[in-house]
């Protein structure tokens, strides 16, 4: 299949899977500091969030501001299962995904009937309601105090020994594995009849419906799959940081995810990955200019929307790569 060789035909980036996998496996062992490894883990969690959001907003054309809600629902599901029933992440992780997906089915069956501004605003109201529940249902969530002490899982493989995922190196593989499964699933959906349907509906919903592509059903699939992975990301986050609080539902989380998707490139596979990594690492290394950081993010977001609606990945595929190829062909000719 074509896309097993090319990560994304539109960007034309030719990524050989074994090479990429080898690099990802080698990364923790090339002498990175604990801090850099931490940033890689956070990047991987954000890759899950941005790739799944890109499925909804990039391919589905639905600007959902509710993605942070499913992230938070997943984190709380995992945390509560651990705190109340001592279930480890091996139960919490799938449970978080499933609970988020069920929540998405419930709200989706109402929200996905409307489009445009009405959908944007309802999704925003939903995440605010979830935040208020997390703050006020003190008996369940301990409100603003949050839920601390969520342990990372431990796995015992007979003959190999015990792996404690409290170690950053071990958790790195867990997070990167999760990110890889998410990106792969999103890519599979995008390059399937469901993905083609989504694109058709995004470009012209009436026309799509008239040839028998159900807008509601397709939007629902994107929304629920996206929410499932947001829940998975939430569970990983909860077990990695060991702490969840209502802050997970803050608008700033939503904005972070949006920025990663939009600046990376919203209807591409690679864009959200690049965006997630860039916007995890850049803010950390821009600490020198800490106070200007968010202003800068705002400027870049605004500029991207106005000038490069398809993100920085397009910058590569439209200008840099052709320039690069021209340069190379000139070298060959010479």
């Amino acid at each position: 299949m074509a896309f097993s060789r090319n990560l994304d035909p539109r960007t034309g980036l030719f990524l050989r899977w074994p090479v990429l996998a080898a690099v990802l496996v080698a990364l923790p062992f090339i002498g990175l500091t604990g801090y850099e490894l931490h940033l890689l883990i956070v990047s991987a969690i954000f890759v899950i969030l941005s790739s799944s959001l890109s499925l909804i907003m990039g391919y589905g054309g639905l600007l959902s501001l509710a993605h942070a809600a499913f992230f938070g629902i997943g984190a709380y599901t995992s945390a509560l299962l651990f705190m109340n029933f001592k279930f480890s992440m091996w139960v919490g992780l799938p449970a978080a995904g499933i609970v988020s997906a069920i929540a998405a089915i419930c709200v989706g069956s109402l929200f996905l009937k409307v489009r445009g501004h009405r959908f944007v605003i309802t999704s925003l109201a939903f995440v605010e309601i979830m935040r208020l529940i997390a703050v006020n249902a003190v008996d369940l969530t301990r409100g603003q105090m949050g839920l601390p002490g969520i342990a990372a899982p431990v796995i015992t493989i007979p003959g190999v020994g015990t792996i404690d995922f409290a170690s950053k190196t071990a958790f790195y593989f867990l997070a990167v594995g999760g990110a890889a499964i998410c990106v792969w699933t999103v890519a599979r959906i995008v390059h399937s009849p469901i993905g083609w349907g989504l694109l058709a509906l995004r470009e012209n919903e009436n026309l799509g419906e008239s040839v028998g592509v159900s807008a509601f059903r397709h939007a629902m699939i994107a929304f629920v799959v996206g929410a499932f992975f947001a829940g998975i990301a939430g569970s990983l986050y909860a077990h990695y940081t060991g702490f969840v609080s209502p802050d997970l539902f803050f608008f700033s989380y939503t904005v972070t995810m949006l920025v990663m998707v939009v600046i990376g490139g919203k209807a591409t596979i690679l864009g959200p990955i690049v965006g997630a990594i860039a916007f995890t690492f850049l803010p950390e290394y821009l600490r020198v200019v800490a106070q200007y950081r968010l202003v800068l993010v705002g400027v870049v977001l605004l500029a991207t929307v106005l000038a490069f609606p398809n993100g920085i990945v397009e910058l590569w595929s439209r200008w840099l790569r052709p320039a690069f190829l021209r340069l190379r062909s000139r070298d060959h000719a010479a």
Partner: protein
Amino acid sequence: MLDLLPQFVFNGLLIGMSYALVAIGMTMIFGIMNIANFAHGEFYMLGGCITYFIAAKLNAPYLVAVPVSVAVVTGLGFLLERVVFRQLRLKSAMSSVLATIGLGLILQNGALIFFGPQPQAIPTSFSAFPLQLGPIFTTEARLFAVAVTAATLVLMYVFLNHTLYGTAMRATFQQTEAAALVAIPIDRMRGITFALGAGLAALGGALLGAIFFVQPAMGATESLKAFIVVILGGLGSIPGSIVGGIFLGVAESLGTVVSSAYKDAIGFVLVIIIMLYRPDGLFKKS
């Protein structure tokens, strides 16, 4: 409890009128440009912060600081319409929402750099002693805010209904193409609408800032509240947003008596229900 009722209604009215000031601009921008402006609350914040800056740092009297800061933000609104929003006119809802989120980030964090994160009180010459009007306890600053807001709303009404510009603006609001056909300068109308909306929000911030505190983070909450109000009143309806603002303010004030924990959630639940089932707002006859 019941004897406190007028007090709660008065407090709610005060907050509600400020919601209305922000919501009018937001609803006008939506009506005339089809943009849900997530950055609109930032004009409210800037109005408050600039008033604080002029009154506290430049030692100007409060009554001078308010009109100056409103004028500054009005100018900024006019400029932003030219530079940013004009480009967004033909873009999708997604692009325009994302752009206004970016603009909100810039304005909020720019203000954070300039004014610092601490909540500040705007110094005024009003007496801090409470006044008693029948069953209601209030202060001079609160009375001033209510009076100025009420006067502004009346002026807005007169402007929209009894002046040439106001009529042209309403025409653009209702049917842009038809308005253009009768030689109404659409671009200029959009500029004026945007500047006016920004100025009204700034006035709200300058007035309420003298009663509560001002800080750069206050704009984001105000945007959310204004969204609720705009939706309660019907997207694009100016009278709706005034009634919606006062309705939300009073409902929140009374809601504090019933359950303070979930009072904010009521607004958002209403928003979802209205967006899904009554997109023209609560008050419009179907």
